[in-house]
Each structure stands twice: as C-alpha cells, then as structure tokens.
C-alpha cells in the first residue's frame, strides 16, 4: 500500500478500495517502525492525523471529496501549524506552539489532506545535509551512513522510504531540489511568489519558496494545485491565475528545446555523474526534444552573491528571536542585553549564528555597498543571463547536485565545502525561476537527480517535461531496498 503514488491513492480512495483512515494508519505504523532509524520526523501527529482522516472519509461519504481529500502527507516543520509544535529544526523554537496556520497548511486542510506529522530539517533551513538540526541528523534511506541532503532532508527521506507519499519543502538555495536528488525523489521549487510565504518561518525572504516533494511529477502537480495561488497576507505573493497543473502532463514534448549551460558541464564535473546525466538527457531526445549548448556567463558568481544576500536577509529576519515574545529564553538574565545575547546565543546553533554574523557584518556601516548592493547587482546579471537563454531554449537541464549523497560528518566541519553542494541550484533562487529535481538513475547505489529549470511561471511545463520522461523510464519508482 505504501509504494503507491498520491495519484494512485487518490484513485483508490475514490474507488473505495480502502479508506483514508486505513491508509493513514498504515503510514503511521510505518513511521513508528522505521523512523527511529531515519529521524525524518520532528513531530508525528497520530491523533490529529486519524481525526483528519475520519473527517476526510466523512467528507467523501457526503460526496464532497476532491483529488487530495484523505491523502496523508508530511509537512516540513518550517510551516506554522496551529496548536502543534513548529520548531524550524531549532532549539529556539523547541517550545513554540504556533497560534496560527501557514497559508499552505490551511490550503491543505481545506482540501481535506491529512497531515501525518512535521518533518526534520536543517535549523531554520540553513544547511545542505540536515546535520544542523537541533533534533539530530536525518539518515538517507538508501544508506544510513549518508546524509539525505538539506534543508528539506526529513521531507525527502520520508518520501524515499515511503513513510509518506508526499511532503512539502522549502527552497532558498536548493533545499527542495538537492535533498530530492540525494534521496531519489521528485521535487519542485516554484517561481518566487507562486506559493504564499505566510506562516512559513522566514530565512531569506527574497529567495524562500515552498514546493512539493513526492515520488512523481504527477504527484507534485496534484500538490501544487493545492499550494499555489495569491495570498494578500504575503506582500510578495504574485496575483496571477493558477493553471490546473495536472491538465498538461500528457502533452507531447516533441520539439522541446533543452539548453545545457556550458558553465555547468565543465571538466570539473565528475565523469561518472556526467555519464548518468547524459543518459537521462538522451531519453528526452528520444521523445523528440532537441539539445542546445547555452551560456550563463555570470552563473559562477551565484554562490558568492548568495552567501551575502541570504545571510544578510537571515540576520534581519532572525532578529525577531529575542527571548521576549516567544521561543527560547535563557536562565536568569542579568539585564536586557544579557537576555537577548544569551537567549540567542544558546537558542541558535553554530551554522545559524555563522550566517547571522556574516549578514550583520555585510550590512554594517561602511560595508553595505561592497557586499549587499554588489550582490543585488550580480543578481540582476545572473537573472539577465537566464532571460537571454530562454529566448532560444524552453528548459535548462543540469545535474541537481555535483555529487551523490555524502557521508554524515564528511562536510560538517567545512562550511565552504557544504555550500558548494548547491552550486547548480542557487542561481535559480537568485533569479526567482522555477526548478525541479527528478530521479535520473543511480551511481554506486546512490540516487542521481536531474535538474530542470524553467522560465518564470512555467511550472506546468516543467511538470509536463518530467512526467513525460517518467512515463518512459522507471528511475522514479526505484526505492531503497530496506523500505520496500
């Protein structure tokens, strides 16, 4: 039952093959059985899930079920859930019970979707391995000595191990796509502003975007149908019509023009990784797509610009954690400054503090022009490179990550090595473009992800392109043997 996709579960529930309560209990049992090893959940809400499942079954009996009604999924612990702990992977929010629901949480509730629990993540979404979580690292289900990627590592691992058929993630520099790649699942970061950030704990506000993670592109389309849309409570949310993302999945991709940026396919790219990606792209050519070399001349500046923009916005956003209104407060503060400093010093982990420090420095008097302003200028150059590229191609492809999953502990002492895990994904966030990662085979028994980047608001095209190849291949159906 747990190997089924969201689309299959939706059809089974409609046909009455089983009830939402039955499938929800089945997933809860699997979580109980496997998650002590994987650590992919911070909170499992068994009681709430069963109540929601019963309500969904009643809704169906009343003839009011939609496609996602009764489907159990997991939510990243970055989304506020009313009455339930929302930690963002941090000691700072270990005691935080959210007084309200995030926009997408309310959307899923309205759709009748069941929430199994909240998934583990890098602290405040800052990390590429899930090792910065206050709740300990998540293990990669393909090999538990390895990281699942991050920051949406719990979301990726629970779908890969089939502890949930789908989950939500957030992506500021690759945090949906890189873990999707390292765990062998499908993940989509929509265009900036497509999904409301209301109630999503902020990391870098001009980059953050929520998206779906599941086995297939079709499942991501079903989830995005629930998630996308304008919300006036997020001033950067885009007021633009939301298409039915499932409607165009079966369109032909004959004539699709695929751009391969020469800056991503250099001699530095691991030849074995390149061979897997080349073979995946061949499948698209077989379906009638054509391949063209393109250039993104400023893309090498993505990581330098990102590690100013993101920390600067993080230092500003995380200034709200003051030990006064909610969250962690230190013991016996001697005065107000001591209260601020020790609550923040003890409540945040090392990586979060590292980024706050970089941001505070970059924004401090005398440095603004050299760092933040310069980074925003570079950002325009990177964006313009993409705009130009999309004059001649429809989508851009590359590996999602330069390597497959790495060992737990391998990069945790070296921040720069960790940051380079996102070298292919960060430019998409700086430009605000939609991007996907889909399974493209394995290398030494670990999954490889293919990244597909689309033009603004072309999520439907990305999902169509991914779906067509998933109809012709079986990489997305492969799952780790221990969790069959």
């Amino acid at each position, binding site marked *: 039952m747990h190997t089924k996709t969201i689309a299959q579960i939706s059809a089974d529930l409609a046909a009455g093959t089983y009830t939402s309560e039955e499938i929800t209990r089945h997933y809860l049992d699997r979580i109980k059985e496997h998650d002590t090893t994987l650590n992919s959940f911070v909170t499992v809400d068994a009681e709430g899930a069963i109540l929601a499942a019963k309500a969904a079954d009643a809704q169906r009996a009343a003839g009011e079920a939609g496609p996602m009604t009764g489907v159990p999924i997991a939510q990243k612990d970055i989304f506020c859930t009313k009455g339930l702990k929302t930690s963002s992977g941090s000691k700072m929010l270990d*005691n935080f*019970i959210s*007084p309200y629901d995030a926009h997408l949480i309310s959307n899923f509730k309205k759709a009748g979707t069941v929430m199994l629990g909240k998934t583990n993540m890098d602290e405040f979404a800052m990390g590429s391995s899930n090792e910065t979580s206050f709740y300990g690292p998540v293990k990669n289900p393909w090999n538990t000595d390895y990281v699942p990627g991050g920051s949406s590592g719990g979301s990726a691992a629970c779908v890969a191990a089939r502890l949930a058929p789908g989950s939500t993630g957030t992506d500021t520099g690759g945090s949906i796509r890189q873990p999707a790649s390292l765990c062998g699942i499908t993940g989509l970061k929509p*265009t*900036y*502003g497509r999904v409301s950030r209301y109630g999503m704990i902020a990391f870098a506000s*001009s980059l953050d975007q929520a998206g779906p993670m599941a086995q297939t592109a079709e499942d991501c389309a079903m989830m995005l149908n629930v998630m996308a849309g304008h919300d*006036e409570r997020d001033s*950067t949310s*885009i*007021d633009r019509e939301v298409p039915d993302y499932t409607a165009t999945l079966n369109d032909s991709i004959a004539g699709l023009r695929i751009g391969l940026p020469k800056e991503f396919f250099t001699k530095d790219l691991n030849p074995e990784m390149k061979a897997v990606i080349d073979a995946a792209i061949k499948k698209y050519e077989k379906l009638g797509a054509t391949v063209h070399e393109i250039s993104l001349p400023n893309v*090498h*500046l993505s*990581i*330098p610009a990102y*590690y*100013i923009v993101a920390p600067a916005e993080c*230092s500003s956003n995380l200034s709200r954690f*003051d*030990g*006064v*209104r*909610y*969250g962690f*407060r230190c013991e016996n*503060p*001697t*005065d*107000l*400054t001591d*209260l*601020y*400093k*020790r609550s*923040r*010093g*003890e409540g*945040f982990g*090392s990586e979060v*503090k*590292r980024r706050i*420090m*970089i941001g*505070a*420095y*970059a924004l*401090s008097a005398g440095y603004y022009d050299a760092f933040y*302003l*310069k980074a*925003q*200028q570079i*950002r*325009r*150059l990177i*964006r313009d490179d993409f705009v130009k590229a999309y004059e001649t191609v429809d989508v851009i492809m590359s590996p999602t990550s330069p390597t497959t999953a790495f060992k737990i502990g391998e990069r945790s002492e070296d*921040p*720069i090595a960790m*940051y380079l895990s996102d070298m292919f994904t960060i430019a998409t966030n700086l430009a*605000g473009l939609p991007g996907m990662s889909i399974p493209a085979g394995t290398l030494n028994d670990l999954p490889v992800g293919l990244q597909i980047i689309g033009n*603004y608001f072309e999520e439907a095209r990305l999902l169509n392109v991914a779906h067509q190849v998933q109809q012709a291949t079986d990489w997305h159906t492969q799952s780790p043997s221990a969790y069959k």
Partner: protein
Amino acid sequence: MSIDIEKVANLARLTLSEEDKANYPTQLNNILELANQMQSVDTTDITPLAHPIEATQPLRVDAVTEENQRDLFQSIAPSTESGLYLVPQVINRAKTKETEKE
C-alpha cells in the same frame, strides 16, 4: 579583510561558545573571501535586483484587518503580566548605562 568577531557578535546580540570563538575567525573570513569573488565583475550602472519578479508592493486600504489576539499570542511568551511582556529591569539602574555604552 578581517572580521572583528567580538564586535559583530555584539551587533548581532549573540554570545558565542568558546568553540565558535575559535572557529569563526577563519570560517567567516573564508566565506567573505568567497563573496569577494563578486568584485571581479564591473557592475557600474547595473540596477540592483531587489525582487526577482520585479513586482511592486501592493497597497491596501488603511483599515484594521487583524483582530486583537493578545491573550493567545502571550500564552506562548516566556514571561508576561497584566498583558505586558516581562524583561529584566531596564531603568533606574547604573548597570544599564554601561550596557548601553557598548
């Protein structure tokens, strides 16, 4: 370029562990060195990109849209009294002046 760790930690209102104090100087300078690769490109006359979609901020009517939920919000605060958030005393103490001089 070298970053004054103590000064920045104070600006950011953070105490640092001994381990972080030992590691941060090298780590933060390495990150800034990485960021400095940006200086290799001439960006004269390039308008900074603040919003990726270049959308303008929407305006709304200046009317109350949120209801008062003070009690709910204060139910998760570390310390409150009579609807107020409690913090250590900040006035009438000589010590406070020293703190503010930092």
